[in-house]
């Protein structure tokens, strides 16, 4: 299993849409890497500065309905181009969530209470988020402090992660 996660980017807002994740003016790019510098460029979130806050991050924690709006898979690619392959949220839009798994990336839904308490606890800290696949846990670490949260994945989501994405999965079956 490939490695998921890394240093955590906290985006404490609901309904972050794909226009905010990657604005349409960059949809003319035909390489995923070209999207990298524009990730979250138009995000309306007080105190968030894309130029300094994204560098070195490997995971995102956020509110409800993450990735709503446009179907553009460029949103998942822009995260991936920044080495972010894990998003933990209260909920996801259908298309964005599927895009993540279709690209072999991980989208984990946790309860609103859990997310709120994690964000409150780790908002101002330098946190690392890793995935323990054997125990199916998200492991948050800030210095000496550790928090382990159980998560679940459907059989299909797990199969997509294992296959490396939907093209790989579908190609041998259909």
């Amino acid at each position: 299993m490939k490695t998921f996660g890394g240093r955590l980017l906290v985006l404490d807002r609901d309904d972050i849409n794909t226009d905010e994740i990657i604005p349409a003016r960059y949809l003319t790019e035909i390489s995923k890497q070209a999207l990298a510098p524009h990730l979250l460029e138009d995000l309306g979130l007080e105190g968030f500065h894309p130029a300094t806050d994204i560098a070195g991050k490997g995971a995102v924690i956020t509110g409800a309905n993450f990735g709503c709006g446009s179907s553009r898979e460029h949103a998942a690619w822009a995260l991936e181009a920044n080495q972010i392959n894990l998003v933990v949220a209260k909920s996801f839009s259908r298309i964005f969530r599927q895009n993540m798994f279709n690209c072999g990336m991980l989208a984990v839904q946790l309860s609103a209470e859990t997310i709120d308490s994690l964000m409150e606890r780790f908002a101002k800290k330098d946190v690392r988020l890793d995935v323990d696949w054997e125990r199916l846990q998200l492991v948050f670490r800030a210095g000496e402090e550790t928090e382990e949260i159980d998560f679940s994945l459907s059989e299909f989501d797990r199969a997509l992660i294992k296959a490396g994405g939907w093209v790989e999965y579908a190609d041998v079956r259909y």
Partner: protein
Amino acid sequence: MGKTIAEKIFDAHVVDNPAGDVHVIRLDKVFCHEITTPMAIRDLVDRGKDRVFDPGKIKAVIDHVSPAKDSQTAEQGKILRDWARRNQISGFFDIGRNGVCHALFPEQGFVRLGDTIIMGDSHTCTHGAFGAFAAGVGTTDLEVGILKGVCALSYPATIRYHLTGKLPRGVYAKDVILAVVADLGVNGATNRVIEFTGAAVEDMSMAERMTLCNMAVEAGGTCGICYPDATTVDFLWEFIHPDFSSREAALEYFSRLVSDSDAVYDKTLEMDVSDLAPLITYDYKPDCVVPVSHLAGRPIDQVYIGSCTNGRLADLREAARVLEGKTISDSVRGIVSPATPAVYREALAEGVIGIFMDAGFCVTNPTCGACLGMSNGVLAEGEVCVSTTNRNFNGRMGKGGMVHLASPATAAASALAGCIEDSDLYEGQTA
């Protein structure tokens, strides 16, 4: 136990159930445009799988930026054009014959009752107006659709939205869907189909039903869907007549798709449209909706009439009815983009385009352009636009711009007034 229309369509197309409620369904159509398809094409080429499951079931259009505005958009068009040629895609629409995908494809008869359709575009939900199951997907789902003709989707849970009553004067399908999105919230129909039923839907033309279903995704919905009826069959008759002895026979055949009376819904909601006033969005989410009167008088810089939501002939006619014999405010830039060449031609023939031009509007060729801030009407920082499109996200029509979503009549009235204005002000007036 009975089934909903979405379940019936779904069940007729299932080819696999790999796990849980995930079903792989056979696709009747795969629609493509030049923004989300090129990366799928490139990946297929890289994998040595540059082929399509059925060239007759794939339809493609260059619509988002047309004509190309720079080298990059020219390249995107070229990738789609070259691919369509070498794979012998029969339904490919290039400049001169192109239009906004969700207006063009139904007009061409590519959307049929009971179809399953995907496209790399969130507003694919529009096609549910025809009693089809149509879902927006990302590029990877599109790629597999192109190659294999299948897509994996959750079994469709449905919210039934029962719309009763009669639309008051000055209130349109756009106002209804804004009210529905405001009621459900931007997350209220996620992973759900929204089934629209009731007398108000039965009274709607296909253009109005497309406007209604188009914004199902703004509540998170997978697909908006309407029952097939005489209106649907009439619209499609020129395409389906070889298969049926009469319109009545077609209607009888398709009526099997209508949800059973004992179908199970996630929830059922009801709204009497007779009570609605013209509506408009504020802020940056499409569920932030108020009566137009609440924002009346707010200054605006641009009015945009067009898009897959409201760029059809009926929409242009409604706007022209408000504009006829008048000129728009000096402080407003008016832009109208007929959604397809057929809409453009008809609007020209019946004088609608002339009314727009006399009023001081710029008439552009059919394109998605300004709706998502890609071309043909991008806003500057701090500018305000009343738009007949579907998204008011921060920066949607240009970085730092504010978009107010409304009906074509409200947009036209606002263009005349130079500020947000109810079309009622201009009802019955002449120059």
